[in-house]
């Protein structure tokens, strides 16, 4: 193929993305153009096969199961119980509702898998309560969208499943690797919130700390749900089931506790929940299928190696390379939606990461953290959009309020990049340093 023909599909994709073609179809049409331009070297039906191949990954089978489990959770009254736990834990602190939001985001993160779903849930529950207690709408939108980012790092995270598939990295190790960064993010959010709340005089929700009895009662009530991340990690660690199987087991387990344990979910709700899970999972999956077809073209023409060639000069210094990639992703993240950027960029960056000797699991945590932070950056941040929409916050006010949180997240991102141990210590401890799960 000539050089022009080799680059044309990439140009087609970027042109279509700029021209408002839906991202999934822009990638798919770009891939299709490669098959058309190959002059019969690659048969056209191979395009359909490549698109189809995206659905044949065993690791991606976990995705719809975890999405389904999250949808059932959200419909089953679990959020009310988790709000209660958050309230007894931090209700006595300054800016209690905002702090509760972070704690609730952390608890939900271990259950629902979808940051978008959590942003909506947090905004609907604690966000509206915050507005009623005279917190500014923009501040409420910022804290609810920021707390939802934690979800993308805690198991079971959809972003980590997708990355694991695209980078051929262990999903089990990725799940374990996200836990400490997720908790660090939660701690950082609480510090920034504390400073802001003190300055503005946002009050506590209760005068004294909760008693031990209150705390135990709340924890006991939420125990069934909070056991889910433990089941996933323990089940995969001891070989009871694979990560893919854990998704399906969790979906059934969640349905069981929703109906028998909490008794707040009826079978009449099930069709709606199934439809919601199907929509959420298939929209993301179709994008992955399109990326799969595009991946064939990228590999055929060695596009990633060419496009990231200038970056490879830095491959000798992994830390500098990671920081430069972070900077590039932050800029890209302001324009491209996080999951789309993850799907487009992972195949391009992985060869470079391997060349620089950076651990794929470590890079996955940095990449997913970076791209999820993009969810709260104007103008296309999905989490920002959801929270602002629910709470009626203006984008200009949101942009101002989000700055201290963004600053904290940038510091965290640098720490995660410079200190791989923050990501790798726990998976090495659970699975062993050389194990592949």
């Amino acid at each position, binding site marked *: 193929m000539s050089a022009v023909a080799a680059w044309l599909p990439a140009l087609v994709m970027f042109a279509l993305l700029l021209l408002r073609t839906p991202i999934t179809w822009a990638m798919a049409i770009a891939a299709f153009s490669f098959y058309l331009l190959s002059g019969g070297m690659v048969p056209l039906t191979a395009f359909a096969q490549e698109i189809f191949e995206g659905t044949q990954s065993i690791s991606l089978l976990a995705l*719809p199961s975890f999405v389904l489990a999250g949808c059932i959770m959200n419909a089953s009254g679990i959020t009310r119980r988790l709000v209660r736990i958050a309230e007894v834990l931090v209700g006595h602190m300054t800016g209690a509702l905002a702090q509760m939001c972070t704690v609730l985001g952390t608890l939900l993160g271990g259950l629902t898998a979808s940051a978008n779903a959590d942003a909506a849930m947090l905004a609907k529950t604690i966000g509206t309560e915050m507005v009623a207690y005279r917190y500014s709408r923009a501040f409420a939108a910022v804290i609810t969208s920021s707390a939802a980012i934690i979800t993308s790092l805690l198991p079971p995270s959809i972003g980590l499943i997708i990355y694991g598939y695209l980078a051929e990295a262990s999903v089990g190790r990725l799940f374990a690797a996200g836990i400490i960064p997720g908790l660090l993010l939660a701690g950082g959010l609480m510090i920034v919130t504390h400073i802001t709340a003190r300055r503005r005089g946002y009050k506590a929700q209760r005068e004294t700390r909760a008693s031990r009895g209150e705390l135990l009662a709340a924890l006991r009530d939420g125990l069934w749900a909070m056991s889910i991340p433990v089941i996933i990690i323990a089940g995969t660690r001891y070989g009871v089931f694979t990560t893919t199987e854990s998704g399906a087991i969790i979906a059934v387990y969640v349905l069981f506790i929703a109906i028998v344990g909490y008794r707040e979910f009826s079978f009449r709700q099930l069709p709606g929940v199934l439809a919601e899970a199907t929509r959420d999972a298939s929209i993301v*999956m179709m994008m992955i299928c399109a990326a799969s077809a595009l991946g064939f073209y990228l590999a055929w023409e060695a596009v990633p190696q060419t496009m990231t060639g200038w970056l490879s000069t830095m491959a000798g210094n992994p830390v500098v390379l990671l920081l430069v990639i972070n900077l590039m992703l932050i800029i890209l993240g302001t324009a491209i939606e996080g999951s789309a950027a993850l799907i487009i960029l992972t195949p391009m960056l992985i060869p470079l990461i391997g060349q620089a000797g950076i651990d794929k699991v470590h890079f996955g945590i940095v990449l997913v953290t970076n791209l999820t932070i993009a969810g709260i950056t104007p103008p296309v941040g999905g989490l920002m959009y959801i929270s602002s929409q629910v709470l009626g916050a203006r984008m200009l006010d949101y942009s101002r309020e989000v700055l201290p949180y963004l600053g904290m997240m940038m510091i965290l991102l640098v720490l995660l990049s410079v200190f791989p141990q923050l990501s790798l210590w726990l998976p090495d401890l659970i699975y062993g340093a050389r194990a592949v799960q």
Partner: protein
Amino acid sequence: MSEPVARDPWWLRIDEGIAVVSLVVTVGSVVWGVVTRYLFPQPAAWTYEVATMAFAWTVFFGAATGVRRGLHADIDIFVHYLPERWQTVIDIGNWVLLAVFFAAMGVLFAQLAASTTHVYTVALSLPQTVTYAPLALACLMMLLYHLGRWGRWRATNPEDVEDII
């Protein structure tokens, strides 16, 4: 939490029905695989084959639902700043391009289905046509739903938010 979709009549939501049933089969097959591994002397060998087949149907019919309801996200940071008339021209161009693309996908999957009648799956010995033919149907649905969206150019993001809630 979203209610069952009530915007279109039931016969237009057949895509969603197929996708939901396929999702149940996907999850159920994987669970059955784990159950038989521990409870029966011989674990079921067909579970992953059925799960991946049903998963493909979930994705394609779910994507058809996405086309019907305008849920596939786009990036409007550039077009947003163009004059209204230019935006309409771009939207019509996109509409034509996608219609041709969905038709082409349908034809390609139909060809695959036709050419694999004698290629059998490993565990159940089903012709691969069983896998590919529904995908051709899903692509045809995408085309029909897309044609029906003439004039409604944009991805319906506000609907997305309501769905998530």
